[in-house]
C-alpha cells in the first residue's frame, strides 16, 4: 500500500492550478470558501450535458433513465460518505445554507413555540445564526449562545449550563470556518439529547476534512455542501433522521414532491422527494458523486495527514513573523490559519497578496459576532486543501513579509 499521497500527481488533476495570476503561478489558499475542482468532476458535468441531459424521475425514455440513475447514485454515495442508515435520509438542497433554512422553516415552524430556547455558539457562520433569529423573532423564542475561550474553543461547562427543558434545538458548527476549531459534536449531541433537544450540525467545513458518521455522532440533522468537497457549486445535502423527516411539514411545493394533486387535496411524495420540489440541480448533483469518489480514492486519512502537515508547517512559519498573531489555537483544529498583524488591516494584506498571485480570504468570514468577541475587524485566512504544498506556504510567508514591508 502506498504510504503517502503523491501531491504532484494530485495537482495535475486540477486544471486551475496551472493559472497564472498577476504574472505569478496561482497559490490558492481560499479552500475553506470553496475548493478547486479536479478534471474528473469537470468531465462529469460535460458528459452529462453532452451525453444524457434529461429531466429525471418522470421520463421513461433512455436519457431520462440514465440521468435518474446517475442522480440517485449520488444519493447512495452521500449516504455511504456520511454513514446514514438509509438513502431516504439524504435530501438534496442548494447548499448548507438552504439545508439549515429548510430545517428552520419546517421543523422549526412546527416545533418552536414562544419561550422555547435555541442554542448556537459564538463561532457560528451567519447562515447558522440568521435563520434561527428569524424563527425566534416569529415565534417569540430565545436564542442562547455558547461562549468560547481565548484559544477559540467552546466553553463546554457554559454549554451544559445553557441546556434546560426549554431547549428545543442546538444548532452547532462542526468546524469553525474562521478559526478552524473542531467542536466536540458527539459530546454536544449527547448532552442535548439528555434534555430532549434536537441537534443540527453544520458540517460545511468539517465534511471535507473529517470522517463523518452521522449515526455514531447521533446527529438529528447534518448539513453540508458539495463545493467545499471538490464538487460543483449549487448542491447541498441535508441529512435528517428518518422519523424526524417523516413528521416534518413540506418546505416548498411544486413538482417532484407530490404523489397526487387535485384542487381539493394534494398528497406528498415519500422521502426524500417530499423535500425536493421542482427540477433539481441534476448536472451538479451527478458530478458531486465524482468528487466523493475522488476523495474516497485518495482516502480521508491520508488527505488529513497531508493537510495536518501543512497546518503544522504553516503555523510554525507564520508565527515567526513579527507582529503576527494566529486567531484560533484550538487543540483540535483543521488545516486553516486565521491571523492578524499589528497595525495592518487584513484587506490590505489580501490585496497585496493577490498581487503576488496568492489567494487568501480576508474579512469577518461571515462570522461577525465571533470577530466582535475577538475584538478584531477581521482576519486574513489561509485554508489548505489536499493539493497545497509546503513550497506554497513558503511563497505565502515570503509574500507576506514583502507585503508587510510595504504597509508598515
Amino acid at each position, binding site marked *: 500500500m502506498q504510504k503517502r499521497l503523491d501531491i504532484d500527481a494530485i495537482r495535475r488533476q486540477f486544471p486551475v492550478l496551472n493559472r497564472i495570476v498577476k504574472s505569478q503561478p496561482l497559490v490558492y489558499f481560499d479552500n475553506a470558501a470553496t475548493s478547486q475542482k479536479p478534471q474528473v468532476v469537470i468531465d462529469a458535468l460535460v458528459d452529462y450535458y453532452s451525453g444524457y441531459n434529461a429531466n429525471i424521475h418522470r421520463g421513461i425514455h433512455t436519457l431520462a433513465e440514465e440521468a435518474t440513475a446517475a442522480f440517485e447514485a449520488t444519493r447512495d454515495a452521500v449516504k455511504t460518505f456520511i454513514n446514514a442508515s438509509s438513502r431516504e435520509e439524504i435530501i438534496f438542497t442548494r447548499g448548507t445554507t438552504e439545508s439549515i433554512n429548510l430545517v428552520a422553516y419546517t421543523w422549526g415552524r412546527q416545533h418552536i413555540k414562544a419561550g422555547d430556547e435555541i442554542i448556537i455558539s459564538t463561532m457560528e457562520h451567519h447562515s447558522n445564526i440568521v435563520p434561527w433569529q428569524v424563527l425566534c423573532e416569529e415565534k417569540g423564542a430565545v436564542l442562547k449562545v455558547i461562549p468560547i475561550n481565548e484559544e477559540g474553543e467552546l466553553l463546554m461547562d457554559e454549554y451544559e449550563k445553557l441546556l434546560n427543558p426549554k431547549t428545543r434545538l442546538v444548532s452547532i458548527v462542526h468546524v469553525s470556518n474562521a478559526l478552524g476549531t473542531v467542536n466536540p459534536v458527539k459530546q454536544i449531541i449527547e448532552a442535548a439529547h439528555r434534555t430532549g433537544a434536537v441537534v443540527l450540525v453544520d458540517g460545511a467545513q468539517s465534511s471535507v476534512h473529517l470522517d463523518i458518521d452521522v449515526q455514531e455522532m447521533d446527529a438529528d440533522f447534518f448539513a453540508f455542501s458539495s463545493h467545499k468537497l471538490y464538487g460543483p457549486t449549487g448542491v447541498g445535502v441535508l441529512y435528517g433522521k428518518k422519523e424526524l423527516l417523516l413528521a416534518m411539514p413540506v418546505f416548498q411545493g411544486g413538482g417532484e414532491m407530490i404523489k397526487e394533486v387535485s384542487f381539493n387535496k394534494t398528497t406528498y411524495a415519500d422521502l426524500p422527494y417530499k423535500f425536493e420540489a421542482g427540477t433539481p440541480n441534476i448536472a451538479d448533483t451527478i458530478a458531486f458523486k465524482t468528487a466523493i469518489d475522488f476523495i474516497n480514492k485518495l482516502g480521508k486519512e491520508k488527505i488529513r495527514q497531508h493537510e495536518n502537515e501543512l497546518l503544522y508547517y504553516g503555523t510554525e512559519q507564520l508565527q515567526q513573523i513579527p507582529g503576527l498573531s494566529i486567531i484560533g489555537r484550538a487543540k483540535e483544529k483543521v488545516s486553516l490559519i486565521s491571523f492578524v498583524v499589528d497595525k495592518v488591516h487584513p484587506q490590505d494584506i489580501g*490585496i497585496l497578496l493577490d498581487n503576488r498571485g496568492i489567494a487568501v480570504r480576508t*474579512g469577518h468570514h461571515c462570522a461577525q459576532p465571533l470577530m466582535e468577541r475577538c475584538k478584531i475587524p477581521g482576519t486574513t485566512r489561509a485554508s489548505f486543501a489536499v493539493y497545497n504544498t509546503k513550497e506554497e506556504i513558503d511563497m505565502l510567508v515570503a509574500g507576506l513579509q514583502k507585503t508587510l514591508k*510595504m504597509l508598515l
Partner: protein
Amino acid sequence: MSEQLSIEAVEREIIDEFALLESWGENEKYEFIIDMGKNLPPLDDKYKVPENIIKGCQSTVWLAADYTNGKVFFKADSNSVITKGLISMLIRVLSGRAPDEIINAQLDFINAIGMRSHLAQTRANGLLAMVKQMKNYALAYKLKNAAKV
C-alpha cells in the same frame, strides 16, 4: 494665488503620475497609493462618529464635509491604508469644489490608473459608497443653497 485647476486637469495630473510608474509593476503602483494613504492627515476623532461611517464589508471609511464660500471641503479616513490612498486621490480631485462640479465629475482617472476594481460593486472597501456620499453632500449643499436664495 494661481487659478484652481479643473477636476479634469487634476485627474490628468494623477494619470500622468501613474504613467511614470507604468514601467514598474503592480506592487510599485500600490506602494505609491500606500504612501498617499500614509500622508493623508489623520481625521480628528470628533469626526469619527457613526453618522460619518461608510461601511464596506471589510474596511471602514469615515467621511466628513464642510461648506464654505460656495465650496465643499471633504475630510476622510479609513482603517485600511490602501483605501486611504484611494480616498486621498478622491479628496485631491473633489475637495474645494462647487457642488455642481462634484455632482458632474466623471472620475475617469480611477479607471485610467487601473484601480477600477476598487470601485466595483463587489469590492469590500466602501469606496463606491464613498463617491456616492461625496456627491450626495454636494447635492445637499446645492439644494440648501438654492433654498436660501
